[in-house]
C-alpha cells in the first residue's frame, strides 16, 4: 500500500525499508531528514514508559531539589494475574508510604492518620504521569532528542535523552536510560537556560525475574478511604480570565470555590500540556494582600494584581511563563 503512493525515483530506496517496517517507512516519507534521530529517541522514551510499567525491580533512589535530599525505596512488580504493584517508602522524615495496586494508589501517612486512596494508575509525585505513556502524547509541544551514549549511572551503561520544549516556556528534562532494561536511572529537570532544579538518581537497581517478595503480600493490607470529589462545579464569579498560555495547554477544569485553608473565594483554572500543569487563581485583591512577587523553583509561583483582582499562577514552569500568563489576563470576551 505504501509503495503505491511513492513516486518512481524514491521507489528503490524506500522498498528496502518497506520490507523491514512499513510503518517506519511511512513516517519517514512524511517527515523531514531529522526523522531517524528523533524516532530513535522516541523509541528510547517509549521503552522507558514500558519499563516503568512492566519491569520487576527493587531500587533505592535519592531525589534532590535545592538543598533538600529525599531518599526512598521503590519496588515494582506484576502479580501473576497481571495486576501491577508499586511500593514507595520515604526513608527520611515523616513516615510516608505509597502503595499502588493497579489503578488504586494509597498514600499512608504516619503517625497522623490522614491516609487516603486515589484512583490513579500513576503514583503522583515521583515522575510526571506522561513518562508512563508513549511520547506521541507530548508532541508537538515537546521534542525528544537522543544524545548518544550517556555516562555510567548506578554502575550501568545508559543512553541519554533530552526532552525539550519547542518554545522556551517550559522546563526541560534530561533522562538517563539503562541500556539493558530501558529503566529510568536518573532524571534532571532544568530551566531552558540549563539550571538544574530537581534531580532524581537511583542509587541501587536490581531487576528481578518475578515480583519482589516484599510486594507479594501487599494485596492483603487495608486500604485507606477513597477520596471523592464533588462533581458539581460553581460558575465563575469574576470577570477576569486567562487569555494567553503557551501553545498546547488545554483547560482541564474551571470553577469557583473557596480555597480550603484560607476560605478565599476564588475563580480557579487548571491547564495542562500533557507533561506539566499550571493553576490560575483569581480572587479579590483586598482579601488576599500578597505583594507582586515571583518565585522560581521546581514549582514556581507568581502573584500580581489587575484592577481589583489578585491573580496567582502556580506551576512547574519558568516564572517568566507564569508572569506572561498573569499579565495577559483580561476580562473575558462576552459570548456571542
Amino acid at each position, binding site marked *: 500500500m505504501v509503495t503505491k503512493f511513492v513516486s518512481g525515483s524514491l521507489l528503490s530506496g524506500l522498498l528496502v525499508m518497506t520490507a523491514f517496517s512499513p510503518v517506519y517507512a511511512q513516517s519517514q516519507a*512524511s517527515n523531514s531528514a531529522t526523522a531517524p534521530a528523533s524516532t530513535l529517541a522516541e523509541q528510547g522514551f517509549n521503552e522507558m514508559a514500558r519499563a516503568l510499567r512492566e519491569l520487576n525491580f527493587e531500587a533505592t533512589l535519592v531525589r534532590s531539589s535545592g538543598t533538600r535530599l529525599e531518599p526512598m525505596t521503590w519496588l515494582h512488580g506484576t502479580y501473576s494475574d497481571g495486576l501491577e504493584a508499586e511500593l514507595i517508602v520515604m526513608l527520611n522524615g515523616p513516615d510516608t508510604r505509597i502503595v499502588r495496586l493497579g489503578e488504586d494508589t494509597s498514600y499512608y501517612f504516619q503517625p497522623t492518620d490522614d491516609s487516603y486512596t486515589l484512583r490513579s494508575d500513576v503514583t503522583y509525585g515521583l515522575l510526571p504521569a506522561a513518562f508512563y505513556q508513549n511520547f506521541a502524547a507530548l508532541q508537538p509541544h515537546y521534542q525528544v532528542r537522543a544524545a548518544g551514549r550517556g555516562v555510567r549511572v548506578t554502575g550501568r551503561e545508559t543512553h541519554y535523552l533530552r526532552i525539550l520544549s519547542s518554545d522556551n516556556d517550559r522546563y526541560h528534562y534530561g533522562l538517563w536510560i539503562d541500556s539493558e532494561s530501558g529503566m529510568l536511572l536518573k532524571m534532571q529537570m532544568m530551566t531552558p537556560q540549563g539550571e538544574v532544579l530537581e534531580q532524581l538518581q537511583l542509587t541501587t537497581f536490581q531487576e528481578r525475574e518475578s515480583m519482589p517478595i516484599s510486594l507479594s503480600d501487599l494485596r*492483603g493490607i487495608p486500604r485507606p478511604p477513597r477520596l471523592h*470529589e464533588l462533581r458539581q462545579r460553581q460558575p465563575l464569579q469574576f470577570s477576569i480570565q486567562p487569555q494567553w498560555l503557551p501553545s498546547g495547554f488545554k483547560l482541564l477544569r474551571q470553577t469557583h470555590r473557596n480555597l480550603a485553608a*484560607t476560605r478565599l473565594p476564588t475563580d480557579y483554572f487548571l491547564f495542562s500540556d500533557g507533561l506539566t*500543569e499550571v*493553576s490560575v487563581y483569581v480572587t479579590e485583591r483586598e482579601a488576599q494582600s500578597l*505583594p507582586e512577587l515571583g518565585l522560581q*523553583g521546581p514549582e514556581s509561583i507568581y502573584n500580581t494584581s489587575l484592577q481589583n483582582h489578585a491573580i496567582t499562577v502556580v506551576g512547574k514552569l519558568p516564572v517568566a511563563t507564569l508572569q506572561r500568563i498573569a499579565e495577559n489576563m483580561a476580562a473575558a470576551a462576552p459570548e456571542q
Partner: protein
Amino acid sequence: MTDRSYEQVSALLDDAVHDAREQAQHIDTLLSDTDAQQAWGRYALMGRIMKNEASAQQPLDISAAVAAQVAQESAPTQVVQGRFGKQRLQRWLRPAGSVAIAASVALVAVLTVQQTQPIDPEQSVEPAFATTPIGGRSPVSYNTVLQSSEPTQAELAQQRRLLQFYLLDHNQQLQLSLQAQQLDEQIQSESETLSDETPQRVSNGN
C-alpha cells in the same frame, strides 16, 4: 549447660540465692533454657526422694501436660481491634526509624525562605489532605524576582503561609485532576469500540 548453671539451678531450688537481682536473673535463665528446666525437675525429684516425699503417681514433668491443656483451649474471641487495621498496617508501613512530626508541619516548614524563626506547629493549619506525598518544594532555589516594599516579619510569615496554601492547593488539584482523568478515561474506554485498536500514524513533522 555448664556446671555453673547446674549450680545456679540447685541454688535456686534450695532458695539459697539471697540477692533479689541475681535470683531474678537465675529464674530468667531457667525459664529460657529447657536443659535447666529438666535439671530443676530432676533436682526437685531428688530432693523429694531424699525427704521421702516422692510418690510414683506424681507425673515427673507437668509442663508438657500444661502445654497440652493450653493448646486445647479455644482461641480468645474478644480481642480489641485497633483503628483502621493499624496493627497490620504498621507491620508493612513502619519504616526503620519513624519520626514523630505531622506531615502538615513538615509541609509548612518547606517555605522558609527568609524565615528567621521556625513556624510554630500549633499555628500551622493542617491541610485537608497531604498534597505532596513525595517531597515538596525546595525553599532555597526560590529567588524573589520582584518585591516592592519592605514588609514586617509578621507580614512575611503571613505571606509565606498564603503562598504555601497556593502551592498545596495546586498539588491537591493535580491529584484530583489525575483521578478525574483516570475516571473519564475509563468511561471513554468502556464506550469506545475496538475500532480504536488500529494504529494511527499522524504526521507531526510540520
